[in-house]
Structures are given as structure tokens and as C-alpha cells.
């Protein structure tokens, strides 16, 4: 193990190098570009034996990735925002064909209103695509999840692509302390990819045929079961990772100060860090607050959340994107899972377009959650930092 000062983008590139990805199609887009730049450097230095294939668009990038993965090689790519949107069509070619591609999406607001800063409105719409989705919080987790993602995706009980999401700039360009594992340790944790079937002229198969209605329901159900079964694999891989490297992330969710918490916040990505600092402050003041870091949006941790939230007086959800007139997507998902639990839930929308989230903002969120038990005072959704006329 060596200690390095790395940005999350560079930490991902190290993860990809250690995972020995063989084909890397790429199209540049901020704030993802640092990943591809470092991978290109690794390849030209002979430190990574991979083909980096510049394609003419993100749509083509995913097409190349599909071909490579179908050909039986470990495949990686990364994108952001408008790039992910342009890939949308090809994203759907991956899960049903059961191709274990790993992609990093560096969360960036999807325009218009355009910008380069973090928002989750690029990746949230892709929940329906059949990709697994994990949101990470720091550079170490970005590297570790790149490794875990391959082991999860390639598990024969899963065989689904994984999208590792990390917040643009707040994480992608933030340098911090990262433990980079040794190649030998990684090889032991992540054996070489053995494809279930691959495109091979000597043993022809047909992939991605047109499917008449007699089969679609069964194929979709198969995918639904695979996504559901992946929950166990996520936990097992996290346990195995912890045994190998000493770091575990709790699998689908990560709980903080939840044992005796009366009020809790569910949050994903980098906002979890700042929320944790707020929890520390509030705990020191004697307030019984806790934090649930939602790591996976797909598979969604339905059972885990019902268990973690039972007995709470009130719950809040922090959303970094919004479905207009229907709250944020995380709120909608959490509400669905906690239906009938009796726990009042409020939605807290913030950090849009990369607006800064401070410890003070998070303290305010907790105060609103605490207040939400008082009848009559409660709104269901708060837009934090919104400038509006008072009174």
C-alpha cells in the first residue's frame, strides 16, 4: 500500500489501472477529463496494458464499450452530464445483454440551465436503465468502489453494469489522502474477468436480437431478479473488500450515529460528509440526530432503510436534483419504501448547479426535520438557500 495525495478523478484512474481494464473508450467532458488524461498517461508509460479508444461522441463510446464487453474483455469508461444524456440510448443495450461494464459518471448539472458544477439531474433519470448505481463520498471510496464495482458486476449472480457516481469538482478535483493498494492485493481480490459468453467466430452466438412480446416480460423479470439479487452480492463484496483492505462501506447504506437517533437525514454523495460534520456538532449539543448515507440507488436498499428508520420520530431526505412538482427523486424512492411506517418525511432540495452546502445549511436541515413532528407547521419540501421575498 502507498499513500498518495489524489483527486477523486485520479483515484478512479488508479482503480482502473489496478483492475487492469483492457478497453477504455473515451470522449472528453469536464469534469471527467482528468480520469482519461491519467489513464492515457498510464498506458503511454506502459503501466497499463489497455486500448484507449477515442470515439466521436458519447453515444459511440458506449457502443464501443458494448462491443468490447461482448467480446469478453474488462471495459471501462467515464462521462458526465450531457455526455451521459447522449449515451442514454446505448445505456439500455448494456443491462439486458448482461454486460458487466463499469462507468464513472462525474455528476454535473444537465443543461439548460447549463454549468459545469455538481447536480444529480444527469444520473438520476438513468435509474430506469438497468444499471446499478452507487454514489461515493471521497477519493478513497472512489478508488475502492471502482474495484468493488468490477467484482460485483462480473459476479455471475449479477452480470449487470455499474455506474459509479461522484460529485463534479467538489470531489472530482479535490485532492486528499488516498491509500493506493498493491497490485498483488488487488489481483487476489479481483480475479481476471471470465465472460459468460463472448463474441467468438469459432463459436458463434447472436446477441441483442429483436424480441417479440412473447419473451419481453420474462426477460424484464429476469433483469428485475438479477438487480434484486445483487443486493446480497453488494454486501458480500463489501465484506470481502474489508477483509482484504481493512476498509468497508456498509454495502447499500452507511449508518452514522443511528443507534439511538430520533431524527435522521438520508443523503448521498459528498453532501454526506458535510452532514456528518453537522451531526457531530448537534450530538455535542445533546441532540439525538443521525445520518444514513444512501450509497446505492440501484439496487435500492428497501429492507435496509425500513430497518434503519423504524422508530424514528422524523426523517429528512436531501436531494441534489428535483422532479418538477414531484419532489426530488431520492425522496420519492424513500417515501415508497417507508410507506406505512408512520415516520413523517420531509424533502430538502439543495446544492443545485453546484451551490455550496455548508455545515450551517445542514444544521438548518436537521432543525427543520426536528420541527416536522409539530402538526400544522410542516411543509413537505424545502428548497434550501432559495432567494424569495420574505413574508
Amino acid at each position, binding site marked *: 500500500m502507498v499513500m498518495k495525495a489524489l483527486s477523486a478523478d485520479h483515484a478512479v484512474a488508479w482503480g482502473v489501472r489496478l483492475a487492469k481494464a483492457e478497453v477504455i473508450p473515451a470522449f472528453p467532458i469536464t469534469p471527467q477529463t482528468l480520469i482519461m488524461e491519467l489513464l492515457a498517461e498510464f498506458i503511454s508509460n506502459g503501466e497499463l496494458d489497455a486500448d484507449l479508444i477515442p470515439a466521436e461522441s458519447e453515444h459511440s463510446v458506449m457502443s464501443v464499450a458494448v462491443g468490447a464487453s461482448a467480446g469478453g474483455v474488462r471495459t471501462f469508461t467515464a462521462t458526465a452530464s450531457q455526455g451521459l444524456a447522449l449515451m442514454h440510448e446505448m445505456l439500455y443495450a448494456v443491462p439486458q445483454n448482461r454486460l458487466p461494464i463499469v462507468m464513472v459518471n462525474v455528476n454535473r448539472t444537465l443543461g439548460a440551465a447549463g*454549468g459545469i458544477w455538481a447536480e444529480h439531474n444527469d444520473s438520476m433519470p438513468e435509474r430506469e436503465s438497468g444499471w446499478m448505481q452507487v454514489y461515493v463520498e471521497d477519493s478513497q471510496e472512489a478508488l475502492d468502489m471502482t474495484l468493488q464495482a468490477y467484482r460485483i458486476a462480473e459476479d455471475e449472480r449479477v452480470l449487470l453494469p455499474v455506474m459509479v457516481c461522484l460529485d463534479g*469538482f467538489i470531489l472530482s*478535483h479535490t*485532492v*486528499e489522502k488516498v491509500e493506493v493498494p498493491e497490485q498483488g492485493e488487488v489481483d487476489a481480490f479481483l480475479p481476471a474477468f471470465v465472460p459468460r459468453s463472448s463474441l467468438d467466430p469459432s463459436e458463434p452466438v447472436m446477441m441483442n436480437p429483436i424480441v417479440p412480446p412473447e419473451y419481453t416480460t420474462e426477460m424484464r423479470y429476469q433483469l428485475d431478479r438479477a438487480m434484486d439479487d445483487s443486493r446480497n452480492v453488494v454486501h458480500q463484496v463489501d465484506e470481502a473488500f474489508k477483509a482484504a483492505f481493512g476498509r468497508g462501506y456498509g454495502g447499500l447504506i452507511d449508518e452514522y450515529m443511528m443507534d439511538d437517533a430520533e431524527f435522521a437525514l438520508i443523503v448521498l454523495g459528498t453532501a454526506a460528509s*458535510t452532514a456528518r*460534520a453537522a451531526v457531530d456538532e448537534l450530538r455535542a449539543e445533546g441532540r439525538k440526530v443521525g445520518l444514513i448515507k444512501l450509497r446505492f440507488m440501484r439496487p435500492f436498499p428497501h429492507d435496509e432503510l425500513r430497518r434503519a428508520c423504524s422508530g424514528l420520530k422524523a426523517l429528512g431526505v436531501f436531494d441534489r436534483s428535483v422532479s418538477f412538482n414531484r419532489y426530488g427523486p431520492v425522496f420519492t424512492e424513500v417515501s415508497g419504501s417507508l410507506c406505512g411506517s408512520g415516520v413523517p418525511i420531509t424533502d430538502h432540495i439543495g446544492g443545485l448547479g453546484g451551490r455550496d452546502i*455548508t455545515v450551517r*445549511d445542514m444544521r438548518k436541515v436537521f432543525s427543520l426535520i426536528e420541527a416536522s413532528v409539530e402538526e400544522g407547521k410542516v411543509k413537505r419540501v424545502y428548497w434550501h438557500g432559495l432567494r424569495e421575498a420574505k413574508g
Partner: protein
Amino acid sequence: MAAQTLAEAAILGGHHAQAFPYFGAERRGAPVRAFTRIDDKRISIRSQIYEPDMVVILDETLLEIDPVVDGLRSNGSAVVNTRKAPSELDIGVSVRCATVDATSVAIEALKAPVVNTAMLGAVAKVLDLVTLENIQKAIADRFGEKLGPRAAEANVLAAQLAYDGTKEGRCLGARSIVQRRMWLPEWDEVPTGVALEPEHIEGVAVGPGSSIQNMTGTWRTSSPKYDREKCIRCLRCWFTCPDVCIKRLEDDHVKVDYRYCKGCGICADVCPVDAIDMVKGVHEW
């Protein structure tokens, strides 16, 4: 670069550290902000820094255009690139202060006025959390990897020279801190449909994140000088200026808006009769 190298030096010293830039619409030489946090435990907060313990100012002239010392308390400290001694320097708040002529140091060591690494040498002198040795090691790592061993060596030297030349003391806090004039409308005042109204300011869009707040004229390192006598009024410059900084007068002569001119030189390049000359430095005529 400097913020990240500082974080790396702190990590080499066994601390936890975090460094990140604030990205706006900018280019090299434009004013940028970057943040570094150093702690003995894992750093959880990921917001920008609003109440810094230390402010490092790489360009003294920023004091005129940006509230760079906002949030700095009297028990904080500052490191400033200037020829002045701390006691002669007024940054708007009186704090423990270290000054160094980093520009001269950089020109001596690097043959270019790029002051990042020199300023890190000065920081090493006043900040207990990092040693000069670790700063130099971090510089060698970062620059060696990117630009090769000679660049690394020159930058390590810049840090050393700055370290040796740093003066410590207390600066003055008499001047008033400039305020940024940011347009922050309430939600129902934001122009509908991301459509920016032209307003009556030449060459400037008004609206969310618009250039009215971004005085791009401060980015300029050379300035277009217009010769009215030579001008044949073809309007090529007016048409091609990427920042709409060439103002068309009623008689089709032109005028440069220096508040926003970035000094790209395109106008001088397209002028068929050399009526625009690019002059080194920030000037207005």
C-alpha cells in the same frame, strides 16, 4: 496547483488534508480561488472556506478588485506576494503577516513570473503544519511528474529562495475591503427561460452567471491600441471580437471596451490595415 501541493506537503507530514479549486469561467492568469484544509483527523466538511485561518495572496493587485480577505479574523494570518514589508502593507485587516517578493524570486528561479511555488516557500516559513522539506518534496513530486526533473529542481529552488526572503510581522488594516457586486435576484426576478436580456451595456450579457459581474478586462496581459487615422471602417474587428468589446460608433469608427477586453488580439489580427496594435501590459486609451 499551490493549494494541492500544500495539501500534499501536509499529508507527507502525517496530517489529513483536502484541497480544491473554485472553478469559474476563466483562463490562466485570471483570478482564481483555491482552498486547503489541514487537520489531524479525517476531514468531513466539504464546503468552501468562509472563515479562513490563513489567506495566501499570490497577486497584491487582487486587493483592489476582490474581497480576498473576507472572513479573515484578527487572530488569523496572511502571506502576501509584495515588495513591501508587513508593516508597510495594508490588506484591510491587521493580522500576523508574512511578505515575500515572490515575483522576483520566480523570475530568478524559473525565468517566469509564476509564483505558486515561491509562495509555498513563504507559507512553509509561517505555517507550523508544514515543513519546507515536505513542501519541497511535494513540489518535486508534482512538477517532476508533469514537467520533468529540471522544472522540479527550479521550483524547489524558488521555494527555498522565497523561504529565505520572507519577512514576518503584522500588516495594517486601514483600507476598506472591496465588495463584489454580484447580482442575486429572487427567484421570480430571474429572467424566464434562461433568456438574457441585452440591457444597455455594450458587450455585456446580463443574467445568471453573466459577464457583467465578470470583469474580464482584468485578465488582459496585452491591450489593443486603436489608430483612428489608419482605420478604414471595415468593421472586421467589431464583427470578430469574441467578447463583443469593440463598440461600433455612429460613423463606423470603433472603440474598445477595456472593462471586458481580454486582450486576445483577434481584432489586431483581422484588421487589414494594422489600425490596431497589441501593446504589452494593461492599458487603456
